[in-house]
């Protein structure tokens, strides 16, 4: 998995590429640690190039959701592939997270 970051106004955008799995979830947690340390409160995760996610990836996202909630922040997701989106739907996490089809729509929602 490749993780890159951008900042657009006050939104930290985390762009993921590849697979989010049990081997590389700690890397994602580390990237989220950096965002929290910088006190960015609005975070968008762009899934455009994510082809796979497992329950350890979901766990890492839930932890970030909780951390942001504690400091009054917000987490949004965009551009999920249908198979990846299905994992969120099966686990009903689409009810917990704010998921948008496009990055622009997610940014507007903050």
């Amino acid at each position, binding site marked *: 998995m490749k993780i890159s970051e951008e900042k657009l106004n006050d939104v930290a955008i985390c762009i993921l590429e590849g697979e989010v799995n049990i*081997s590389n979830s700690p890397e994602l947690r580390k990237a989220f640690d950096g965002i929290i340390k910088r006190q960015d409160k609005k975070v968008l995760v762009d899934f455009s190039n994510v082809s796979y996610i497992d329950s350890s990836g979901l766990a890492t996202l839930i932890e970030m959701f909780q951390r942001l909630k504690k400091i009054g922040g917000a987490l949004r997701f965009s551009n999920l592939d249908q198979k990846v989106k299905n994992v969120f739907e099966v686990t*009903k996490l689409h009810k917990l997270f704010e998921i948008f089809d496009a990055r622009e729509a997610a940014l507007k929602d903050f």
Partner: protein
Amino acid sequence: MTISEKIPSRLELVPEFVANITNKVKHLLSEKELFNIRLSLEEALVNAIKHGNKQNPDLYVKVTVEADKDCISMKVVDEGAGYDFKALPNPTAEGNLHKASGRGIFLVQNLMDKVVFFDCGRGIEMIKFLKKGIKEGERENKRREIK
């Protein structure tokens, strides 16, 4: 086709181990089936390593896959003490949705057509009927037959 492999209880080895197995059967699967089968096998293995073998690297998990154009069956068996698979909480329940863990076996149960636990929870068999081999109406009959 039958595949039989063993993996030591090291979580970091799981994705590559699963990819190697699913690569051998991917010609039988649609893209969606491949995704769901790969995810189910990975979750069952992680569960076996974490909760079955308690991540003891001296213990192994055995995987047996039988596949043809109609159906794929995957058995994952650990060397641990077993566990009460009936006591697994529902991660979609309102009080559990915010919890970070506890979704692995739930995903397996929802992505596969049939899931059977055996040997006091040391083993899990996951079955998926394949679209390429069986027409949609026949899949339901097949599912009823096996229940």
